[in-house]
């Protein structure tokens, strides 16, 4: 196989068709959709982020970078940054740790491998908003069975009022959905660790725990790092449904992530300039994360 980077192999001599017009026709659908639904709105976001609109949307005024200054100086926004970091890191760590644990177990068994895999991968297909609803249903204070059990055990459980408990609930729901994905990648990574290395260590008397941390874990580090980036992106963007379904950003903004705030400020509070400025900041974050990921992908090709 050739490289995984998007540009690998462009120098390759390739037999081509000599048509002049056809390639443009072939490209037309995708380019048209990309321009209308991507470049146009993205440039609108950039433009809007420098405007200040009155609440009725009647007049707008060019204010330069003032929206950005306002957003970055807003304690609510900074709180939202903090919430996003706590949420993303917790979700990624929880989902990856559980998945790695299960994947190492799956490596050991001989019988039932296929069965376990099937049973572990299907939460991937559950929509985030539905996942959120299910967890909320189990843990909501008025009729959730688990909330009932927690209360019977004397624990004060109310995620609708307590910010930390709300955060815990969205993290668990978000991580639950992501286990399948991480599990598949960890299984693939573990299979690529050479058996001979592990056997040699076993002959030297290294315990299975020691073998894991000194040989297996360092060898699967590239996958771990890749998953860290993917899980972070997931926690940033794909969890909007979970948060909207479980907490709606509350209580008292305790679970208001950056994406949720873009939505909330733009569609609920109708602060168009501020919301657009936040969009632009988010775009910058995504581009940075993607760049990190691509750098890593190049290394990985080298490694494999």
């Amino acid at each position, binding site marked *: 196989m050739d490289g995984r980077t998007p540009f690998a192999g462009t120098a390759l001599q390739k037999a081509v068709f000599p048509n002049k017009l056809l*390639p443009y026709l072939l490209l037309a659908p995708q380019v048209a959709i990309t321009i*209308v639904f991507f470049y146009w709105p993205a440039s609108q976001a950039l433009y809007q982020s420098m405007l200040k609109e009155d609440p009725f949307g009647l007049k707008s005024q060019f204010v330069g970078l003032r929206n950005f200054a306002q957003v970055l100086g807003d304690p609510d926004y900074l709180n939202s940054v903090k919430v996003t970091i706590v949420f993303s890191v917790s979700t990624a760590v929880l989902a990856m740790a559980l998945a790695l644990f299960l994947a190492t177990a799956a490596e050991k068994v001989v019988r*039932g491998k296929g069965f376990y895999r099937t049973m572990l*991968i299907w939460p991937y297909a*559950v929509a*985030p908003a539905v996942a959120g*609803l*299910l967890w909320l249903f189990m843990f909501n204070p008025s009729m959730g069975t688990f909330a009932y059990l927690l209360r019977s055990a004397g624990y004060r459980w109310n995620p609708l009022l307590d910010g930390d408990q709300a955060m815990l609930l969205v993290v668990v729901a978000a991580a639950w959905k992501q286990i399948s994905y991480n599990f598949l990648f960890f299984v693939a990574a573990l299979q690529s660790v050479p058996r001979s290395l592990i056997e040699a260590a076993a002959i030297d008397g290294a315990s299975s725990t020691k073998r894991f941390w000194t040989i297996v874990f360092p060898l699967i580090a590239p996958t771990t790092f890749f998953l860290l980036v993917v899980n972070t992106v997931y926690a940033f963007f794909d969890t909007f449904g979970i948060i909207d379904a479980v907490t709606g950003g509350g209580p008292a903004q305790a679970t208001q992530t950056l994406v949720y705030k873009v939505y909330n400020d733009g*569609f609920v509070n109708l602060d168009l300039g501020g919301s657009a400025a936040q*969009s632009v900041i988010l775009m910058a974050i995504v581009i940075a994360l993607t760049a990190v990921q691509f750098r890593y992908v190049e290394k990985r090709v080298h490694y494999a």
Partner: protein
Amino acid sequence: MIEKRGIGRPIAHVVLILGVLIVAFPIYYTFIASTQSLTTILRPPLPLTPGDQFVPNYSEAIFGGIGRIGGVDVLTLLFNTLVMALGIALGKIFISILSAFAVVFFRFPLRMLFFWLIFVTLMLPVEVRILPTYKVMVDLGMIDTYAGLILPLIASATATLLFRQFFMTIPSELVEAARIDGAGPLRFLKDILLPLSKTNIAALFVILFIYGWTQYLWPLLVTNDNQMNTIVIALRKMVSFADADTPWHMVMVTSILAILPPVLVVVLMQRWFVRGLVESEK
């Protein structure tokens, strides 16, 4: 061999079984709830075995219509969601194959510019540009239409890159042979390239179908009409914690029906799913 003896393997089984239980439990619990009457659900703890309301609950949801979301029945919701998921999956595959084909098998002015134009979109999920994209939809009159649900989510480069990578592994000899035999580019695409891409298309289809089925933020914005809701959105609208009359038994039935189709796709097309996941993300 290592660990033939010892207790490693039984422990691994125990760990996996626990893992499966944790992963599967929320769904099982939902299924249990979907077979209970509303009064049973409102009085925790819920029993751990199915109740006797399976037939009445499901038939009410599927055929009767749910008052909370404007009397729309679940079949309509499932149909909307299916149209959206299929539209996104097939639409993306279609435009991606064409553009990847153009970029790999032709040389023309501005080729790399077009490639970059598409490639950049890889980086930005629709979530970060929702408000302006929403405005574009309003301007184009695409609110409450299937096109509005589908088209903006097709504008992404992942599938194009995937096909491009695969096309570049096609040996030049194949192209030359086709040309010598007098096959034009479209003939080559149809008779040689598409059959060779079958597994890639299947893998991508599974991933994109699930992506489309599970969308939330976008359908929430572009559908106002209850008749146009996807099942996930309708589900969200049915639930309210502020007041006591959320029809929880209906919510649970709808959840199960929302989960079932994509789960079946994943389980039945597991081989392509795993392949698609690993390939499209690398």
